[in-house]
């Protein structure tokens, strides 16, 4: 049988590709569709953006170096980590008024059952180990004035989805 140019096989491949994107899109929509509380995270200054796959603001967070509780001070153990995020009284002012800024208070290598734990991957960056939460990019329209925002001047509005992943919802300017 000649596989090359076989319309049946090509349609199977096309179907598999579409199924992949439909399933991925569905999973992303469903996993984020939770009624978990939304909260804010403080950001730290980094290079603001680049233009790969659309304009985005590159974000770094205070919680990228989690401290407190069982969080490792100088870890060489890279890989999966769960970080407890809590309101410890830190506040910031936005256009909607004063909001609470959550902080990292504890760490664990296994996923705790209680809410408020976010999944992170410890990777080695320039200065040492850094917790990456998958919310390090916020994509914008190329004409959106927030593309000039620097980490540190904005707060990230987030929530935790069903799988302990942090979901980046919005960027909010600090006043």
């Amino acid at each position: 049988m000649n596989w090359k140019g076989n319309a049946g096989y090509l349609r199977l491949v096309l179907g598999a590709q579409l199924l992949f994107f439909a399933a991925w899109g569905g999973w992303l929509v469903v996993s984020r569709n939770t009624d978990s509380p939304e909260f804010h995270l403080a950001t730290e200054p980094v290079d603001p953006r680049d233009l790969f796959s659309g304009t985005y603001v590159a974000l770094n967070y205070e919680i990228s170096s989690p401290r407190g509780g069982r969080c490792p001070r100088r870890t060489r153990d890279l890989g999966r980590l769960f970080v407890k995020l809590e309101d410890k009284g830190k506040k910031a002012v936005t256009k909607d008024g004063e909001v609470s800024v959550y902080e990292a208070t504890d760490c664990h290598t296994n996923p705790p059952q209680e809410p408020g734990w976010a999944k992170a991957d410890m990777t080695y960056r320039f200065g040492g180990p850094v917790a990456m939460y998958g919310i390090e990019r916020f994509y914008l329209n190329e004409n959106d004035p927030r593309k000039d925002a620097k980490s540190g001047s904005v707060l990230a509005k987030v929530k935790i989805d069903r799988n302990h992943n942090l979901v980046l919802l919005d960027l909010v300017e600090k006043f």
Partner: protein
Amino acid sequence: MASYYKKFKADLDASAGAGIITPEQAAAVYERALAGSPFASFRAAHWIGAAAGLFVALGIILIVASNWDKIDSYTKLFAFLLLFAGMGEAAIRLDEKPAAAVPLEMIWFFMPILGIGLYAQIFNLSGDPVKPYLVWAALASPAALLSRRPFAAYLCSALLFFTLYYGTLSSNGMLALTAARAADPQPLWHWGLALAVLAGGAAVFPGRKLSLPLGASVIWLFIMMLADTAIKLRSSGLILLSGMSLAVLWLTYGSERDDERASLPLKVWLGAVYFTTFFWHYGGDELVNHSGPDTSAGGALAWLLFAGGLLSVVFRPQRLLPAGSRDETAGKVMLAASMLCSFFLFDANEATAKAVAITANLLLAAFGTVSIISGARDSSEKQINLGVAVLTLTAVTRFIDIFGTMLKSGMAFIVTGVAFGALAYFVNKGRKALIESVKK
């Protein structure tokens, strides 16, 4: 390769013009020869079609990347899936019409990365920078392999090799093989994934041509041995042994046809030997030894490559000189010598390094001379020119590099010029004798 077909076509046309064969026979022979070329079916219209598809695909990606934030996320997802299905189905339905199918296949090839970019934008995804490329290649490869045209397969192979180099040379990500500073070594499964990507890139590459994917693999492996990986090498002897062995292996197995010399691997081998001539100025291993000793895995790999290279030289036809020529032994000796001269560097000091440099110079001189003689015997102007070019480059480099003073360099140029003149005289005399013997 293109010049080969051009010259072949000119020869056939001349033969048809001289009445040796009919124009129909000339056309049929040319078509048959061209069918073996990987770009045989890629006539001008196909190239234009491919360019059209490429530009449209890149345009769509940029328009989507500009971020239509006023449009609802679900609408964007649905529109993407609809566009994806439409492009794929159109490419399948119009498969018999290349003018439409080629650009559509190009757009289809780029649809997965368009979707990945769109999803990242909608859901603000970030993470491993290598993962999108791997997912793109995994999704695009089956359609590329099933396509009756090779273009998507070439792009897919290029994508996989790009991902291999990009991913393995970074110190972060699922393909990272270079050690991050102060961090633990990269896990073993990274190597498994990297080798799978390498195998995928070579397997997807269309046709039976091995030269390019083998070359990309060989260069990648050598870079991994030089970089701070689990197979890093730091001693000059093992680095040179690995480099020369890889060059010999590429030359031996990267050849495209039985009756034609491999041009790119040959140039790389010549370049490697030429580079070795500069060991004349070698000052010791202090510089490279700053970053630690050789790894045991790297050392074992270097000896394996050498063993493979040596066995290939002994048991496989040499590809240094034209295949089937009477210079088979000379070619094999030169290839083996290029690897064996690395052994001088195992007791690396200035004297042994100079021995390496002298051996390399002798190798280039021998290659140049044998090429000229072989070319004269086979009436191959190209082979003679290659030999002259290698001898000239070697001589000029040495005059500037070693002799130093203008007086000595000037004398050396004159002596070499006279030697070339003598060589040209004897080559011409040999050719005349050969022609006379055929006439008798």
